[in-house]
């Protein structure tokens, strides 16, 4: 046998011990559960992405291109529902958070490992309802399920909403688990302000998950009761109020925006410090701004309803609070910039995604100012401007942070490196394709192109066509990424414990980590960003 011993992963590691399918399906190891989440959400990300490309192909030209209006309405509904409920909400907390949070705290697992496994099965159970719905006529309500449309339309609305209802519980349980874990299982010596900022992001997120998700559950149950029993709460013919549904829905779904972005901001904070090899600037400002955002996020839901006939007084308050919730995000951005100052910066794939995040999320955040300003929102509401805005925030923000996190922790999870050259190719395709697709939509929306339109007037054809071509470039980037990331799992060169020269605890154990995270108990000797006092080098 002439196999180089160096090409084997360290043993024992959580990927191979114990072995067997049963050991995975019944595992209580947070890393395995997180990885199973990752596979599930990537599957749905792919499905949602395919729907997105089909939507853009339909809009490539004027008139019916590849599908009917009814099919189109189902497509954009499924794209939204899958991307929001099945992908982006669980993406960072349940997948990346599950894998990394206990290791970063120096713990052996989360506080409630069985609950953790249960939350994965609840997620899978809920997603089966969603798949059942897709196979049985699907839904054409838009992911927002507005009444009275959603109570009067045909289609599998009940199974879809039931699916989302069930998935909500997995989100609540994950949040609960994380809160307890962060409070109780930190390594001795790791005080609150010595925690990595990703943990702060997850903590703020968990609070919203636990407090807001039940409201979504109540709302969806009311919708199901309305459809099955006709209880009349949203039915004007029985004295109900359809706009009440919008209030209920956004009371969850606006905070949910921060469930999506806060952990992403946490990942950015980690990566910006590691790849600048520098102490993070304004640690407490970043940590507290996460909590500030979490608190204010509950008080701005009415800005989705400026044209719904709510009182001018309510609109004024919601407008004001909307501007206030923007300030902490701005503070974070300046803190990340200041971290770069006098750093020792390298440009591996995770750092490229930090730059993409700064570029795209800044556009996403600034265009939010337009939508917070009442008279401007009246014009832009429900147009492509809004579509572009939330894609810049959700995809340009959260997904870029998520992709950065994937590239950052991929060597830790699998013990092997991906091809840096191919990572650059994919990054360029994604960055260029994303801007082609969505920047165009700011122009479309400003000119008055309403959203959720199967067809459009001739004056919009050029821009719609350009946006559709952009989506193909974007899609190509993801295909390239899938290839090199999967290739790395099997053929990548060994990463070593600490390929980036980072100081947080997950880099002080082997890659992949052993089942109990650390072979010998870790000791807290330095803070997460002490690059000014601790000399740390890369292990390649």
């Amino acid at each position, binding site marked *: 046998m002439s196999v180089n011993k160096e090409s084997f992963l360290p043993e024992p590691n959580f990927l191979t011990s114990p072995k067997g399918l049963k050991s995975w399906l019944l595992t209580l190891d947070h890393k395995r559960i997180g990885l199973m989440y990752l596979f599930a959400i990537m599957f749905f990300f792919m499905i949602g992405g395919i729907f997105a490309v089909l939507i853009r192909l339909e809009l490539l030209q004027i008139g019916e291109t590849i599908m009917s*209006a009814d099919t189109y309405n189902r497509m954009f509904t499924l794209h939204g529902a899958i991307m929001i409920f099945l992908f982006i909400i669980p993406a960072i907390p349940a997948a990346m958070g599950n894998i990394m949070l206990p290791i970063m705290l120096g713990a052996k697992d989360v506080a409630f490992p069985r609950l953790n496994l249960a939350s994965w099965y609840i997620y899978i159970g809920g997603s089966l309802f969603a798949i059942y719905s897709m196979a049985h006529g699907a839904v*054409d309500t838009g992911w927002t399920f*507005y009444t009275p*449309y959603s109570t009067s*339309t045909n289609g599998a609305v009940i199974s879809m909403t039931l699916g989302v209802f069930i998935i909500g519980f997995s989100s609540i349980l994950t949040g609960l688990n994380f809160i307890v874990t962060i409070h109780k299982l930190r390594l001795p010596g790791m005080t609150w302000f010595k925690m990595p900022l990703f943990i702060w992001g997850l903590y703020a997120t968990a609070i919203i998950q636990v407090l807001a998700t039940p409201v979504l559950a109540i709302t969806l149950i009311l919708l199901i009761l309305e459809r099955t029993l006709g209880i009349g709460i949203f039915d*004007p*013919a029985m*004295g109900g*109020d*359809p*706009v009440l549904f919008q209030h209920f829905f956004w009371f969850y779904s606006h905070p949910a925006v921060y469930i999506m972005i806060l952990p992403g901001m946490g990942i950015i904070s980690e990566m910006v410090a590691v790849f600048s*090899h*520098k*102490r*993070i*600037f304004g640690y407490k400002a970043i940590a507290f701004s996460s909590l500030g955002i979490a608190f204010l996020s509950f008080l701005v839901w009415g800005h989705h309803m400026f*044209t*719904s*006939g709510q009182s*001018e007084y309510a609109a004024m308050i919601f*407008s004001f609070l909307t*501007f*206030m919730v923007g*300030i902490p995000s701005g*503070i974070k951005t300046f803190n990340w910039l*200041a971290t770069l*100052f*006098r*750093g*020792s*910066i390298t*440009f591996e794939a995770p750092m490229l995604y930090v*730059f993409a995040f*700064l*570029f795209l999320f*800044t*556009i996403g955040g600034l265009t939010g*100012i*337009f939508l917070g*300003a*009442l*008279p*401007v929102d*009246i*014009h832009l509401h*429900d147009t492509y401007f809004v579509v572009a805005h939330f894609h810049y925030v959700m995809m340009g923000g959260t997904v870029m942070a998520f992709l950065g996190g994937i590239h950052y922790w991929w060597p830790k999870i699998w013990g092997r490196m991906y091809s840096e050259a191919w990572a650059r190719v994919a990054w360029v395709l994604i960055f260029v394709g994303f801007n082609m697709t969505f920047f165009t939509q700011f122009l479309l929306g*400003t*000119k*008055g192109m*309403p*959203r959720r339109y*199967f067809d*459009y*007037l001739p*004056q919009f054809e050029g821009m719609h066509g350009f946006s559709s071509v952009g989506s193909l470039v974007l899609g190509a980037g993801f295909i390239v990424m899938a290839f090199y990331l999967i290739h790395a799992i099997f053929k990548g060169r060994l990463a070593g414990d600490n390929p980036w020269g980072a100081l947080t605890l997950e880099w002080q154990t082997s890659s992949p980590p052993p089942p109990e995270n650390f072979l010998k108990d870790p000791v807290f000797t330095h803070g997460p*960003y002490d*690059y000014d*006092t601790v*000399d740390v*080098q890369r292990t390649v």
Partner: protein
Amino acid sequence: MDSTATLWMPPAQSTIAGEVDALFYFIFYVAMGFFFLVVLAALYFLIRYRRKGNEVGLTDGHDHNFKLELIWTIIPTILVFIVFIWGFRTYLKMNVAPKGAIEIKVTGQKWFWSFDYPNGAVTLSELVVPAGRPVKLLLSSRDVIHSFYVPDFRIKMDALPNRYTMLWFEAKNVGTYNLYCAEYCGTGHSTMLGKVKVLSVSDYEKWLANAGAEKDAEVPLPELGKKVYTGKACMTCHTIDGTPSVGPTFKNVFGHTVELSDGTTITIDENYIRESVLKPQAKVVKGFAPVMPTFQGLLSNREIDGIIAYIKTLSEQ
């Protein structure tokens, strides 16, 4: 009418559009400033502080600067305050219709708009208005939620099945403008297109006179309301000559403020009348017993529209 003639906002064709655009462009330039600040600073730092060689030593440990942090908190806060106050002032103008505005009832349904003019004329999908006169639209829907959107006028308002919403505008120039439904409403959402046809005042009056004659079959709202008043038993308890009966009179009440039995006051408007027809016990005028039955299911929406229009004709404007 070519909305692609400009890069961002389409042509401003209503009196309020210019104000909306001024705020839009203010935010636009401030946002551009911040965007370039962030991206150029990031690029500069990335290049200036890139690592040279493979080894890395200890780096600068400064992690806060109170003055700097105060500045980058306060400046954006001041700017969003300006935007907020500016925005709210314009928004109030957009929401308070001038006195004497022409009132047109707009009804959305799958998948067209219908318009009821003061003289009983009805048009479908095409709203006809005079240039240079304020027009007030009272919106509602027969089925799901729709949204009335004219980009060139910068106006948008949802049409709801259970309550009236209002918007107003004053078109500046004669022409034809696109009208969209902006709230997703199903299969025909993207074909629920209409036009706003703006005529000169004299042409409008000529058109209206003819349109009213043509549509004799369609009963105008005030007339319908009068029929409802006598035919659906309102007259049993409400007079039209100013004397109180079992319930308050209908004469000279619209737009007036009355005291309610719980001591609060309310101005009688479209929504109050509608609520009082459907949920009579909700807000009872002081001095009257809460004895009125609900007319939920007994009156159609158009009949309620009619009652409201009729009560308006009984009041001094």
